[in-house]
């Protein structure tokens, strides 16, 4: 089990890596311990503790439970920015057509933009195999019992990808609309995929995810004529949770609406690189993403 960030990597495996990786490298520990030494007495459970009366004492630590993950996410984000890489975290329930949408995107954009994929699933490398069939580099992370990817796993997976400046890195998270919402991976944007076969009330049933997402891809719209799915209602629900969410209606199967999604990726990558040229002049580029 990983002793550094504690996000359940005990069960996780990254393709091509030994299951029990060791941490010889340096990790930046940026969190503050403002109250680290402020032991105080008389504020115990029953307000009955007095110094000298009992060995037990109180320590205030005020630490976010996800602080370890957030440190890794910060390191990933910084490395992505320094290396001019646009990283997108794709989240959805199982069966929303996430992998199909991804393979179509890779096929259509792969010639103009260098792309790579990190695949997260509990088991098997089937999705990474599907991606590799398109000629794009992919690394599979199997989370075992874990229900989400965490920033630490992603940092290690990136080491296997050798991403060129100006690449787009797609992270296909574990199919789950709950847990991946809480774990920042260091991505530039979270992209939620919702298919019209699922029901228009998903945004209010799983508000945390739709709140955390920057983009909503409403997929399988070619099936709308055969369903009772109310697109306007779905968009209204999504905006209640997240007024700023950007919504694209797409069909990965027919290609309808995909051009807008591609334009968004191209524009986001372009603006990332604009900032990058400025930074690269002052700062030495980091070679690898810390994990």
């Amino acid at each position, binding site marked *: 089990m990983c002793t550094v960030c*504690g*996000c359940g990597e005990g069960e996780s495996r990254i393709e091509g890596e030994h299951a029990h990786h060791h941490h010889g490298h340096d990790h930046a520990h940026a969190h503050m311990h403002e109250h680290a030494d402020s032991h105080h007495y008389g504020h115990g459970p029953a307000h009955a503790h007095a110094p000298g009366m009992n060995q037990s004492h109180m*320590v205030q*630590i005020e630490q976010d439970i996800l602080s370890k993950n957030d440190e890794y996410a910060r390191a990933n984000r910084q490395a992505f920015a320094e290396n001019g890489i646009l990283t997108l975290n794709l989240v959805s329930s199982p069966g929303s057509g996430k992998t199909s949408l991804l393979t179509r995107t890779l096929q259509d954009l792969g010639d103009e933009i260098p792309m790579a994929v990190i695949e997260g699933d509990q088991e098997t490398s089937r999705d990474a195999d599907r991606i590799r069939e398109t000629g794009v580099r992919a690394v599979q992370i199997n989370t075992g019992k874990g229900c989400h990817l965490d920033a630490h796993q992603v940092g290690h997976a990136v080491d296997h990808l050798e991403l060129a400046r100006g690449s787009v890195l797609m992270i296909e998270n574990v199919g789950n609309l709950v847990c991946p*919402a809480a774990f920042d991976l260091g991505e530039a944007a979270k992209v939620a995929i919702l298919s019209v076969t699922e029901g228009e009330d998903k*945004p209010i049933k799983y*508000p*945390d995810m739709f709140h955390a997402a920057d983009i909503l891809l409403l997929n399988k719209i070619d099936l709308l004529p055969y369903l009772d799915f109310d697109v306007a209602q779905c968009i209204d629900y999504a905006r209640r949770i997240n*007024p700023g969410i950007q919504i694209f209606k797409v069909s990965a199967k027919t290609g309808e609406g995909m051009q807008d999604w591609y334009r968004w990726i191209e524009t986001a990558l372009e603006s990332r690189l604009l900032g990058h040229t400025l930074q690269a002049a002052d700062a030495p580029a980091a070679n690898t993403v810390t994990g």
Partner: protein
Amino acid sequence: MHEMSLCEGVLQILQTEAKKQGFKRVKTVWLEIGELSSVEPEAMRFSFDVVMKNTLADAAQLKIIHKPGEAWCTQCSKTVNVKQRYDECPDCGNYQLQITGGDEMKIKELEVE
């Protein structure tokens, strides 16, 4: 459910702090959990006991400090209480609320020896 991972995160923090501050055993852990954080307190309690078994916090008590959900209503220009992210303003019915509190997920304090 990711409460198990969260508890493992708590345990890691306890172990780090134990080394740093020189305590051997954790008797009570106070967590501050906001109403809008994606944490289910009951699942947290269950996972906590399982994860802490045979560690420095074996049989430690878990105390959860609940923080209510709070949001700023742009229309009323004031803070209102909300139970869920998609709640409308209880006063004006506006959905354009900015969450200002209640998404905490923190270890607040420990009783140690």
